């Protein structure tokens, strides 16, 4: 441990007085053009020796002003752009937006559409977790894991393509239901993909989670105190890694999650390793959930409710908040309508919003420079949902 006496002393208002001209400190920008950054954001590090004294997150490199754009698009025109908000897991935007609109417009979604929606969401969760595992290992220099998981992700993307016709932006869940029914023989092909993913995961478990060097790096890094979970608005695997069984799918079951049997995955160590392990087990749980969904889903039935003329679709004044448990935590849409044909205000609440800003800036202090990337990845932040 470095000598704490050389560190800056926090002032009365808690801010550090850092005299850059003293030559003891160095400003180091991690990102936006940096392989060790998640997506296109930047962390402004002030390092003292090899340890970070202060870190500031800078976002906004991906800002497109969705919440403004949606105010000048009709409800059905909003549907194709919402998925662009979060690239690696776009389906939650579609679901949350659709659910909010349905709630305010009083639409009833057909039963089968709910099952298909749940299926899509779980598939997206698997993709996101696979990407995370590769990133987490890569942040510690274990590139080969990323190769394996991205290959498995490609297999899952094939299923997406078969179902929705697109690899990344599916635009499949729209207000009133889903676009289409499952194709012929989808269940069997999905089963093959799931088995492939499971075998990949067992390899990953052997090479990554049981690797001595990986443990040396990950165990004990980035401890999140369970007491501050709520103060910092922490949700999802980061909270579950701290031993708090907080899972929207269980607490406020949406879609068909009340008819599926599963238990939220938790761990107690609350460090990078625990979070990675929570995500791995959560991924296996998603695989199991997909099997359940495909088994219990009603064979026939409508997948789309009849919408009013979408060109003149007006929704009475109201406001609501709809949330879902995405792979990073609680994903929510706050929708306000004023009786016109356009949303009055849409606010997207992405989990990274709190993880990458307040929480990261708190955790990053006194962390070795080498561990910054690993720590950031373990919070699983996606910049697009911070700045929209």
């Amino acid at each position, binding site marked *: 441990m470095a000598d704490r006496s050389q560190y800056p002393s926090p002032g009365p208002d808690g801010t550090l007085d850092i005299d850059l001209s003293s030559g003891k400190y160095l400003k180091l920008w991690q990102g936006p053009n940096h392989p060790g950054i998640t997506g296109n954001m930047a962390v402004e590090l002030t390092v003292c020796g090899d340890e970070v004294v202060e870190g500031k997150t800078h976002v*906004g490199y991906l*800002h497109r002003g969705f919440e403004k754009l949606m105010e000048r698009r009709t409800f059905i025109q909003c549907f194709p752009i919402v998925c662009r908000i979060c690239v690696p897991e776009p389906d939650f935007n579609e679901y949350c937006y659709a659910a909010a609109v349905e709630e305010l417009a009083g639409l009833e979604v057909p039963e089968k559409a709910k099952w298909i929606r749940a299926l899509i969401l779980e598939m997206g969760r698997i993709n996101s977790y696979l990407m995370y595992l590769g990133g987490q290992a890569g942040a510690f220099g274990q590139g080969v894991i990323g190769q394996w998981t991205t290959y498995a992700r490609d297999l899952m993307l094939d299923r997406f393509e078969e179902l929705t016709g697109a690899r990344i932006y599916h635009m499949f869940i729209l207000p009133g239901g889903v676009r289409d029914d499952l194709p012929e023989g989808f269940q069997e092909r999905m089963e093959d993909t799931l088995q492939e993913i499971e075998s990949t995961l067992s390899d990953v478990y052997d090479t990554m989670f049981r690797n001595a060097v990986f443990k040396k790096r990950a165990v004990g890094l980035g401890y999140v105190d369970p007491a501050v979970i709520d103060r910092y608005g922490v949700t999802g695997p980061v909270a579950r890694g701290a031993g708090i069984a907080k899972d929207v799918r269980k607490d406020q079951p949406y879609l068909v999650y009340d008819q599926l049997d599963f238990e939220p995955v938790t761990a107690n160590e609350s460090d990078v390793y625990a979070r990675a392990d929570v995500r791995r087990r959560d991924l296996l749980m998603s695989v199991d959930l997909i099997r359940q969904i495909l088994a219990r889903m009603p064979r026939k039935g409508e997948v789309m409710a009849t919408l009013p003329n979408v060109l003149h679709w007006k929704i009475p004044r109201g406001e609501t*908040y709809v949330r879902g448990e995405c792979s990073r935590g609680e994903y929510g849409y706050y929708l306000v309508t004023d009786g016109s044909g356009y949303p009055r205000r849409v606010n997207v609440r992405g989990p990274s919003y709190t993880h990458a800003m307040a*929480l990261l800036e708190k955790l990053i202090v006194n962390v070795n420079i080498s561990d910054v990337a690993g720590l950031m990845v373990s919070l699983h932040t996606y910049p697009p949902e911070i700045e929209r």
Partner: protein
Amino acid sequence: MQSLYDNLKSLFALDGFEGQRPDLAFVNVSREQLRPLLLHLRDQEGFTHLVLLTAVDWIEDEQFQLTYLLHDRVNARDVGVRLMLPRENASMDSVHDLWPTAATYQRELREMFGIDFPGSPRVDEDFILEGWTDLPPYRRDFDTLEYAQDTYKDRPGRETRDPALHMKEKLYPDGGDNG
């Protein structure tokens, strides 16, 4: 939820209570009442998790609506605390000491709506935009299309149509009513 409302009603002067869902309700509160109400909800009622803090621009009646959405993890219910704010040089007292993460939301509101939160850390720094010289973009009176057109150059040959009019003249050339 109703029990919660009666409980609150006895303590604070609330006007209006809308139960949107069995597990989601909205209350309106005055500016003075806001902080004690939030404290009460956080410490007594178990609404420990600030889900989001955002604003809605009701430009017709010259007001901003601030929404503090709180979540009760144990009973899995949410309550949204609504607060009306006069629109010109709007300013609100900060709650970053109750929830550290509120500072981020307040930075965004400061930048996107121009609502000031005196005392909130780093509230005046650029958050998302950089070198923004125009109106705060999320205000209703800021026209993003107009701004984009006279700031950025369009590539010639792109045409956009209002879908309603376009379909009307395609499907009903005789101008029949399709409402």
